[in-house]
């Protein structure tokens, strides 16, 4: 049984112009220890997919129409808020994009991380190194100790003193480290990282990614890394799923997908990567634009922008086909696309 199994997830979002079909049968399986990259352009539904796993999408305006999100065999879409709260931070953790807005500006960093640890200690005192039936004061002290220890582990120098500083006293990279410490303090089994390095400069990106992959490898934590940057995927992800307009069009081991992509969209994405040595005007771009999700095109949603599209593409959403072990592609024209 996979740790996380997103099975045919359909989600619609109410808006003034009508209902937008944001997720259209998302299919994804994550096993423990795997680092998945969920890649795609803005608006393809990758963040909503991540937020759905933690049930942080507001309903309404969103509405789950079909599908299941099985975490450890249990459908999180059927859990109530109280049960969900127990999972968050403890079983499923999240990191968001911009570290400057993720921390509360008026609370000391040490208090924020201790708050998370304290809450987790309510149901899982062993995380704090405590037995059951421990007093609140002792639990708080243990949470503060663990918080400082986590800050140390993510490489905050002089952590015991820095715990008393406010977020604005940290640099962007240090703040992202703090967020990683907060997300991992409950020893989660799944970490959802929504563009964790997008707001950082490139040298810091590499540092943070290395830190993140070191930490999760040691604890066998699975990661769902949401990103629009295939460089990030190539750097730390063991697997990748490429999304387009609410649908996973291609997924598999990172090396295989990036080296021999089979879906025309994946190929277009890779062709659009800037490389050193390109002359001005040589960077490929993808004609057309992201489809209207309120009135999506029939059949394959990528068809209107696809060079290979034929009448067959507009009949129905193409099913995912395994082209090799774990490598799945949702395209009608697989036979014609050389491997």
């Amino acid at each position, binding site marked *: 049984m996979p740790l996380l199994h997103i099975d045919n997830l359909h989600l619609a979002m109410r808006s003034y112009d009508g209902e937008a079909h944001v997720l259209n049968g998302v299919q994804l399986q994550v096993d423990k220890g795997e680092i998945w990259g969920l890649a795609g352009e803005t608006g393809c539904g990758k963040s909503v997919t991540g937020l759905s796993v933690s049930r942080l999408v507001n309903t309404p305006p969103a509405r789950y129409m079909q599908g299941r999100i099985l975490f450890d065999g249990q459908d999180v879409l059927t859990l109530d808020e109280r049960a969900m709260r127990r999972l968050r931070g403890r079983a499923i*953790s999240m990191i968001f994009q911009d570290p400057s807005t993720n921390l*509360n500006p008026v609370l000391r960093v040490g208090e924020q991380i201790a*708050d*998370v640890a304290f809450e987790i200690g309510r149901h899982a005192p062993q995380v704090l*190194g405590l037995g059951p039936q421990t007093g609140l004061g002792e639990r708080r002290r243990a949470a503060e100790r663990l918080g400082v220890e986590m800050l140390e582990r993510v490489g905050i120098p002089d952590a015991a003193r820095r715990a008393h500083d406010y977020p604005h006293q940290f640099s962007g990279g240090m703040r992202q480290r703090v967020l990683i410490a907060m997300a991992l303090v409950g020893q989660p089994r799944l970490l959802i990282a929504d563009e964790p390095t997008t707001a950082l400069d490139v040298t810091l990106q590499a540092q943070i990614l290395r830190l993140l992959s070191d930490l999760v490898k040691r604890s066998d934590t699975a990661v769902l890394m949401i990103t629009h940057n295939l460089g990030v995927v190539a750097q730390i992800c063991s697997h990748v799923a490429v999304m387009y307009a609410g649908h996973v069009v291609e997924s598999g081991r990172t090396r295989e997908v990036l080296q021999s992509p089979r879906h025309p969209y994946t190929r277009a994405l890779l062709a659009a990567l800037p490389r050193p040595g390109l002359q001005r005007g040589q960077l490929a771009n993808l004609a057309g634009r992201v489809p209207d999700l309120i009135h999506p095109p029939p059949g394959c949603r990528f068809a209107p922008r696809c060079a290979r599209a034929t009448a067959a593409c507009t009949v129905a959403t193409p099913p995912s086909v395994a082209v090799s072990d774990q490598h799945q592609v949702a395209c009608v024209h697989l036979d014609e696309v050389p491997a």
Partner: protein
Amino acid sequence: MMTTLPLDTAELAQGASRARRDAWRRAFYRMRQSSLSIVGLVLVLLLLLVAAAGNSMAPFPDHITGSIDTAMRFKPPSWSNWMGTNELGQDVFSLVLGGARISLFAGLAVVLLAAAVGTIVGAFAGYLGGWTDEVLMRLADLKLTLPGLILAMAVAAALGAGTLNMVIAISLGWWPGFARLVRGEVLSRREEVYVLAARALGAGPVRILWRHILPNIVSPVIVKMSLDVGFAVLTVASLGFVGIGVKPPTPEWGQMLSTARGFLPDYWWTAIFPGAAIFLAVLSFNLLGDGLRDVLDPKSRR
């Protein structure tokens, strides 16, 4: 994987207290930029001192507790009676000092009670939204449709005389203002990314409100509180003026003014001085409130 780290708690506490001292120093510096707000601060402190110790500062403390001196009726201001004497021969200066206690403490109590209730109501209405919001805020609207003074008079009359009843009566009409203010602030704060991030790591609504949202919105609440104390003092005086609230012999500015009205213009001092006391109290809390707004609200800072 659990290890205990030795923490230098003394060093930590020192750092924290230094940060706190710096914050106070900065706040005081900003406040000093406007001399009027310092005047407000000094006046408020003075008023509080009088309210706390007025009885022992008064030249005729027994007049505050109700003794009269018929031989001394309606004496104009003089060296022995700075503000003259009233129709019962009581020293007006002593009564004004003694009246500060009721007026200020009732004013403060009203605002504290209203702010507490209003903040709780507004916070839950704003954060939970939906029908909770609908029910609580319609209740607040209902209160706002009634003129505050009329409501307070009706409730005070129903509950009977007494300082506590008067405070409850006024607060009952006062909390919706705080509820609306807090609800609006919470509505904008609940969309902050750090609130989503806290929820993603398992925080429930109470912790989010208490730890993440309220500390971010205390400033406007404090400013409104300090501005409102003045108006609460005025309302207390108004109730005293119409004869509801504190009963004689306990001196109260509004009630003194009401009695003195019958002796105008001949014995003007019996009305002018309690009136000036009300004026001074309202003015000083307003000055302080404006000063606090400059200190606490970064948007209005020049």
